[in-house]
């Protein structure tokens, strides 16, 4: 070993909300906040709430535009969602934001019984879904979909980018029952505009075709799936990408039609391998009686490390490079 080798400086955990946009990537600022303002201009029943995380969930944009329609509930998540249900009981359409971990883990009982059981139009906005912060398990909502999928009546949306979020918000407001949005905030990549795509609640969309592999992905992993598909083309592997932003109710029809081929099927999600997209797809495959192998790209069933987000995405297999390597290994 050469004595002159330089050790690379270790990356440092960044601020709470680390950006996952690539350098130079097109982004949109606070797409959720602006979409909510726009929706609220057209629908005067929309109100906003947060539990001391307005600035961290882009709710501050709404609060500034509609101070009379914004309610700060303090760092009290049970109150946040109980009150959101109460607001909905009076005919309003609340969007209530906090981090996903607090919504799913701390306030579940309130969401389940006060919003979901009466099927109220309560819209949960959860920041830091999956692995989008390096702060460790206290803030990493790696199992939020696993927790929420068992809640009857709840619609779950895992958007990829700013396009998804902008188009989803008015549809979530228009949907009758409760919804959960896995929020991407700050400068959010704009990806899907290049694919002639529109978000439709409850629908999966084929973003690109491909003869060798089919990716079924949701959330920010659709962005990685598209990048990995391009990278795999250089290896002469032709990859289709199906984006399924609505996890529940799941568009099994579209997804199964894509899976029921000779192609290698891979699910990609920013979530634990337990209880998320992979298991949603797997159960649809089994229910339909397809004897088809499905390969998951997902977070492991572990409490994840703290650290810099790029380090962690690499460590847990969410990077384009890791996806490409996994697919090539599968095809060998």
């Amino acid at each position: 070993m050469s004595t002159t080798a330089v050790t690379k400086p270790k990356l440092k955990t960044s601020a709470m909300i680390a950006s996952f946009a690539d350098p130079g990537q097109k982004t949109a600022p606070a797409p959720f906040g602006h979409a909510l303002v726009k929706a609220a201009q057209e629908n005067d029943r929309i109100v906003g709430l947060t539990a001391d995380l307005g600035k961290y969930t882009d709710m501050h944009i709404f609060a500034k535009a509609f101070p009379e329609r914004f309610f700060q509930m303090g760092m009290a998540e049970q109150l946040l969602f109980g009150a959101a249900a109460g607001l909905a009981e009076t005919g309003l359409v609340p969007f209530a934001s906090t981090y996903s971990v607090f919504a799913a883990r701390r306030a579940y009982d309130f969401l389940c019984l006060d919003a979901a059981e009466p099927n109220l139009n309560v819209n949960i906005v959860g920041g830091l879904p999956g692995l989008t912060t390096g702060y460790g398990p206290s803030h990493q909502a790696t199992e939020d979909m696993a927790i929420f999928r068992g809640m009857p009546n709840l619609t779950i949306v895992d958007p990829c980018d700013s396009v998804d979020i902008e188009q989803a918000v008015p549809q979530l407001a228009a949907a009758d029952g409760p919804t959960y949005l896995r929020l991407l905030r700050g400068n959010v990549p704009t990806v899907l505009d290049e694919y002639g795509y529109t978000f439709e609640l409850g629908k999966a969309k084929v973003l690109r075709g491909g003869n060798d592999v089919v990716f079924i992905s949701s959330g920010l992993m659709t962005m990685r799936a598209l990048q990995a598909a391009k990278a795999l083309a250089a290896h002469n592997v032709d990859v289709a990408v199906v984006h399924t932003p609505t996890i529940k109710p799941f568009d099994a029809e579209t997804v199964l039609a894509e899976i029921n081929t000779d192609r290698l099927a891979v699910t990609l999600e920013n979530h634990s391998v337990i209880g998320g997209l992979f298991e949603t797809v797997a159960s649809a495959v089994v229910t339909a009686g397809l004897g088809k192998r499905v390969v998951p790209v997902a977070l492991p069933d572990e409490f994840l490390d703290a650290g810099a987000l790029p380090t962690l995405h690499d460590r847990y297999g969410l990077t384009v490079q890791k996806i490409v390597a996994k697919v090539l290994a599968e095809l060998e």
Partner: protein
Amino acid sequence: MTATQELHTAHKERMSQETASERLCRVSAAAYRIRHHALNMGEVQGQGYVGQALGAADMLATVYGDQLRFRAEDPHWEARDRFLLSTGHYAIGHYAALAEAGIVPVEELETYGSDDSRLPMSGMSTYTPGMEISGGSLGHGLTIAVGMALGLRYQGSSARIYNFLSDGELDEGSTWEAAMGAHHHQLGNLTAMVDINALQADGKTDTVLRTEPVTEKWESFGWYTQRVDGNDVGALLAAFDNAAAQAAAVGRPSVILCDTKVGRGVPLLEEREKAHFMRIEEHEWQTCSEQLTAGYEGKASA
């Protein structure tokens, strides 16, 4: 929202029509009928939270018989006051009050707790007309009430919101989150009524988790706080009148702490060892009913 928004107070509309003693008699009679309804439901079911219903009957009679603005034939009337039953297991008492109010037919009470009934053991908004929320997971009611109070005020409603909770629910942190939130948002249209029967599932409240000093707790959270004998209709009416007098769209939320006795009105049950889920033998129901009637008639003729 407007600070000057006039809130509704039902009792003012009635005050000109009856004397204080007529009012007391009317509400006491309602409480008596609510107790009888609860006993009848308990007898059909063979068991149930009869003790709580008897204890809370005077509170329920005061609200439904005197304070609450509602339309019996239209339980979803937009301008109605909201009564939230946070303690889902008190549904037996609430159904009795809904029957007394004419929202649920008296004949339907015998279906309480039966399959396919609109009157399940634990109260749910999705089953019963006049039931605003699905209570039962304790500590929820006041958080929902905060949202309703915010929402109704924002929409310019003059309706008031009453949340019925129990002293056991003071164990729940969410109750205090809501207490803080109501004060922060100055929800003067919100009234909490706490049934302090000093009994929880595992025993006496002071042996399970001490909640006292309850009055000081609510006062320190910024609420307009009154503590009364929750089985004294006159005291309840005075307390609710006080709360109504200071109710405002923007102002202090109000709490009425009501000390009650489990099984009140039926000496056999009042004296029995207190239990959260009271067991009453088949032959005892008749005695209960007779004792209730004798006590009421004795008081009425005194």
